[in-house]
């Protein structure tokens, strides 16, 4: 985002691509009963992110900023459709863009991306695919070339390592 703010088109393209993956996971989990809305909502949120990029403060964790926009667009869409009851998770639980419980603390302290980058690939990739993008373990295994059990172990150990790092950086 910092690169993007300075006009680096390639960094910006990569950022939007990564965010669309995060958003797909986020909206899919909230909208299991409205799967057709997910892609529209991703696009609407990307557009909002683009139009409001001047409200991003580089000192702020980008996950918090993106999440607030995604949640705003989700609530807005539900209100428009009058389909609040179709929300698969109660909204109070829809607080985190990233699935695991450690993310709230991480969000406050530093960007999750920085922490993730510090993990070895065989832990980082499973977490990105399964926990953030919302793929199944089998899909993640096919994508990374790891075995199914290696993906599961990678997620487990990776989350543990992340949690330790978050506590360590407190």
């Amino acid at each position: 985002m910092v690169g993007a703010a300075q006009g680096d088109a390639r960094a910006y393209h990569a950022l939007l691509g990564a965010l669309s993956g995060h958003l797909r996971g986020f909206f899919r989990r909230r909208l299991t009963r409205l799967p057709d809305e997910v892609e529209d909502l991703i696009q609407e949120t990307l557009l909002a992110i683009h139009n409001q990029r001047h409200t991003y403060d580089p000192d702020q964790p980008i996950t918090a900023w993106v999440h607030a926009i995604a949640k705003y667009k989700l609530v807005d869409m539900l209100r428009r459709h009058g389909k609040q009851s179709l929300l698969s998770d109660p909204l109070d639980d829809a607080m985190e863009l990233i699935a695991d419980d450690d993310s709230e603390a991480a969000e406050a302290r530093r960007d999750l991306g920085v922490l993730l980058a510090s993990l070895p690939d065989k832990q980082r990739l499973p977490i990105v695919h399964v926990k953030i993008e919302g793929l199944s373990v089998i899909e993640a295994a096919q994508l990374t070339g790891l075995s199914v059990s290696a993906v599961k172990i990678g997620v487990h150990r990776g989350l543990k390592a992340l949690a330790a790092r978050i506590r360590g950086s407190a």
Partner: protein
Amino acid sequence: MKTEALIDLLARGPIAVEAGEARRRFSVALGWGALGAVVLMATLLGVRPDLFAAMSDPMFWVKLGFVTVMAVFALPANLRLARPGARLGRLPWGVAAPIGLIWLLAVLVLAQAPAQARPSLLWGHTWSACPLNISLLSVPAFVMLMWAMRGLAPTQSRLAGAAVGLLSGAIGAMAYTLHCPEMSAPFLAIWYVAGVVVPTVAGALLGPRMLRW
């Protein structure tokens, strides 16, 4: 349209942004809002004739100080609410503190005053006009700050509207101190606070409608 195509489209256009957009908008809004409040006060109500004499009374500075502190904390609250994901933290306490202190002072003053003097400390001579006048003087800042907020991205529109109302109310009250002859803490504790509450409530009611994006 495919999401990928949208991303290509967005990344192809001009993407650089100038830093400090929020600050710039709020500076403009504050400038015009404060100027509007002072001009309205001077033309409709008039500066109190004994202003310079009143300035030697510490209560004048308590009065101006208490609403200024509210504005000083309401401004960063506005800036944060204009930005997705930013948290208010302890700022609400900063707004509540001057109100708490003026109430404490009011209770002390009332407790020490003889019983027959209490009603005049509380009601003064202008209680019926005070909240209305403060609300009136807050209108320019209210309009300008709503404009500033609309150009940004408030995700909690009701709270953001209330923050706009609070800041414009505090600005209106600051301008009103130059006209208002009342100097007792109990009067300030009730009627000044009421004058700030009116635009705050108006902001909370209008926020969800005016601040959608």
